[in-house]
């Protein structure tokens, strides 16, 4: 019986190797860290451990066609703010931020719900929701209807959750209010740097708008037992005047 087994084993050797690799990678995928729970944006500050601070962002270099309007708008914003008449943004009119700005809105926490097939991220401001479909191929960009959250797929790379997102509509501004095209692709690498500290490295690629990709990293600290607060934008007293400046409606008596 030993005779026929030898050649059979030799023939199936490559297949067994593939099976072994698949099993090994499957075993690894079964034990990712549990990111479930509420997380607060972490901004360091006094007494903070510098080792936990996220690395600084890389420069944003826009192509000339986009750089000029961007700089002009920023200068106008700075000027208006100095005059005490800040220019409005979509959020002033209760329009949600969308991805990726939703990931860092002041001190509003984010909740992660982790299942093997889907990771859901809910951010508190405007109750924004992202759904990350695990271990699925990404759709071609042109097949995703442009929206606020796009289409996200994720996979575990060791202890790092890697999320690929496409399909963000052009009116949803990016980091530092940067413009982008429908060809933008965002890759996140999310990992625990300590049991209670999370880093999300966000890399933005856009062959139409950017000279080269840029990255920035957001930090979060775990909020044990925190219950997310609802956010329905029902009582918005801010409005934009004819110059686009933010004003506050007064109730009167």
């Amino acid at each position: 019986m030993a005779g026929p087994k030898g050649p059979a084993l030799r023939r199936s050797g490559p297949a067994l190797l593939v099976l072994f690799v698949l099993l090994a990678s499957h075993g690894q995928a079964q034990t990712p860290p549990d990111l479930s729970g509420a997380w607060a944006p972490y901004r360091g500050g006094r007494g903070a451990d510098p080792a936990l601070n996220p690395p600084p962002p890389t420069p944003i270099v826009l192509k000339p066609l986009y750089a000029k309007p961007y700089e002009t708008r920023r200068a106008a914003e700075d000027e208006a703010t100095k005059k005490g008449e800040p220019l409005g943004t979509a959020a002033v009119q209760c329009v949600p931020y969308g991805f990726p700005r939703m990931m860092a809105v002041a001190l509003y926490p984010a909740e992660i719900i982790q299942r093997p097939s889907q990771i859901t991220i809910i951010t508190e401001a405007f109750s924004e929701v992202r759904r990350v479909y695990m271990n699925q191929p990404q759709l071609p960009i042109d097949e995703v209807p442009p929206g606020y959250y796009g289409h996200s797929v994720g996979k575990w790379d060791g202890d790092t959750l890697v999320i690929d997102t496409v399909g963000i509509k052009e009116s949803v501004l990016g980091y530092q209010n940067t413009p982008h095209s429908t060809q933008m692709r965002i890759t996140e690498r999310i990992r625990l740097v300590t049991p209670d500290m999370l880093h999300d490295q966000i890399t933005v690629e856009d062959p139409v708008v950017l000279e080269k990709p840029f990255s920035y990293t957001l930090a979060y600290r775990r909020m044990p037992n925190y219950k997310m607060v609802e956010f329905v934008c029902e009582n918005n007293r801010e409005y934009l005047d004819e110059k686009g400046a933010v004003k506050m409606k007064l109730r009167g008596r």
Partner: protein
Amino acid sequence: MRAAGQAGLRTRLSVGVLLCTALAAAPPLLAHHSFAMFDTAKRLTMSGTVTAFEWTNPHVYIEIDVPDEKGTVKHWSVELGSPSILMQAGWKFSDVKVGDKITVVLNPLRSGEPGGLLAQATVRDGRVLGNGPGRVGGQP
């Protein structure tokens, strides 16, 4: 902090207008819009009666009737952070009720209209609450 010559205003403790540029706090870390329409270099202190307390998003509001030394009532609208941000600073939805006497310190609107951004409030049980976990309310 005492403004000379304004003793009359202070006698009723209903309107105390204090310009304390030295103590002006940075605007708290909030979202939704820029706070440049408020003059954060000015702080007005006023006491009055609550006519509405709206525990809502994107902001919480306190509406107060503030009498001056002659008894003439002026109405003020005071903007706070959102419920989430305020809860992180120790607020509860029940901390203020219609009819409460309340003292607030606010950064007024630059326009001069009777509205402002809360810096701190002294609520009916005597607690002093800030406007979120920025500089005003402590916390990181």
